[in-house]
């Protein structure tokens, strides 16, 4: 698996719906018809911050993560990018 480039802009795929749940959130991709889970609420906050943040790193920090948590959350984002739930943003 390729590592997540935390220093570029990312966003949720436009065909992905996010539904918060007590344990985190459910993600459904209408294009691939795949379901994924976010297993904690902080990852949900990161994902929700992506659209307005200049980089994924900024989104993580905006969601209240500490520097030493970045690699762990970066791996979670990479999994989401691999299944096209999260995609690179150019604007």
């Amino acid at each position, binding site marked *: 698996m390729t590592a997540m480039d935390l220093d570029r802009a990312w966003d949720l795929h436009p065909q992905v719906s996010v539904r918060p749940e007590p344990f985190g959130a459910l993600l*459904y991709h*209408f294009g691939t018809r*795949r*379901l994924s889970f976010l297993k904690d609420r902080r990852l949900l906050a990161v994902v929700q911050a992506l659209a307005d943040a200049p980089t994924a790193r900024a989104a993580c920090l905006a969601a209240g993560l500490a520097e030493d948590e970045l690699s762990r959350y970066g791996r979670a984002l990479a999994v989401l990018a691999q299944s096209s739930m999260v995609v690179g943003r150019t604007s």
Partner: protein
Amino acid sequence: MTATPTSSRLVDLFEYGLDAPICLTWELTYACNLSCAHCLSSSGRRDPRELSTAKAKAVIDELEAMQVFYVNIGGGEPTVRPDFWELLDHATNHHVGVKFSTNGVRITRETAERLAGNDYVDVQVSLDGATADVNDAVRGPGSYATALRALEHLAAAGMRNFKISVVCTRHNIPQLDDFKALADRFGAQLRLTRLRPSGRGADVWDDLHPTAGQQRELYDWLLAHGDNVLTGDSFFHLAGYGQALPGLNLCGAGRVVCLIDPVGDVYACPFAIHEEFLAGNVRAPGGFSRVWRDSELFRRLRTPQHGGACASCAFYDTCKGGCMAAKFFTGLPLDGPDPECVQGHGEKLLTLRPVGGSGLPKPSGDHSHRTGAPVRDCVEDPLAGLRLTPKEENGAHG
């Protein structure tokens, strides 16, 4: 559904239920042009109390507010509802995806093109035999030709990855490779599901359900094909062979799935249309969301279940005792083994039941065609047996 949990034990959380279903089954009408021998909802004739167009749209709006990702629409044959296309558009315009099951009767070149142009629609064409003889013996004369014509229209319209949906029976298990070839031919995806003793399925289950040897054959075939063949997570009882199949491997009834029937009754799952599993009605105050969140039945289903007679079995952790509806309609205790338990525990119990099926629970409603089901061989009209009721559909009821 294809699920990729980020933690394998996350599925445990699902046992406590979700704020809203992941997907739900919604049967739009009990009307059907066919009279399939194993129909899980005993469909045939429309029920005069079926939800009006306005009420159905209100339910869709509620699903949107609850962020239900998609609904599995079925019936009956949903496309014979005059407002079917209107409801489909209403759902997809309101961020509720639609996956609908059809026998293909209304899939013309025009409707296929309409479907291919909507990214939020998926179609499942039901086919229970890879050949006409095997299919039509269960689904009725001409039904194979109808389904094949629909598949051709969908493929020609450029629809990709629509589904061919097969209920596995004793007679079609030998055709698994043929089904796969058929799906590949149309650029479709194969979906195999389990025959349940629900609805009219109870009458034919003893004769149609796969033999023990066929279950093993099916399990090996599914393992070999992995994610490429969908199962609607319906074979989790086969996990008792060892390795779990892809999917959630848990009974989702009232936890992640449920059923809304044509009159608005909400049941724990599509295979459990019986008052024992009736949670409420969408017309009651608070609508569907109150039923989902507050029904006493659903709350009970979301508490940890105990293995009962299965607790001491080494495989209980993988098969979780199997399918609730299969146990219920074959008269087996809900906290014991599945009738098709791969360790053979269910089979033993089935032989101990009273002969003649006396005392077996009957489904809540029967909308079967009154005039000799299945439809006679000589009737070739694809709508044979369908009793169309005049335009009450949008009337005052509901």
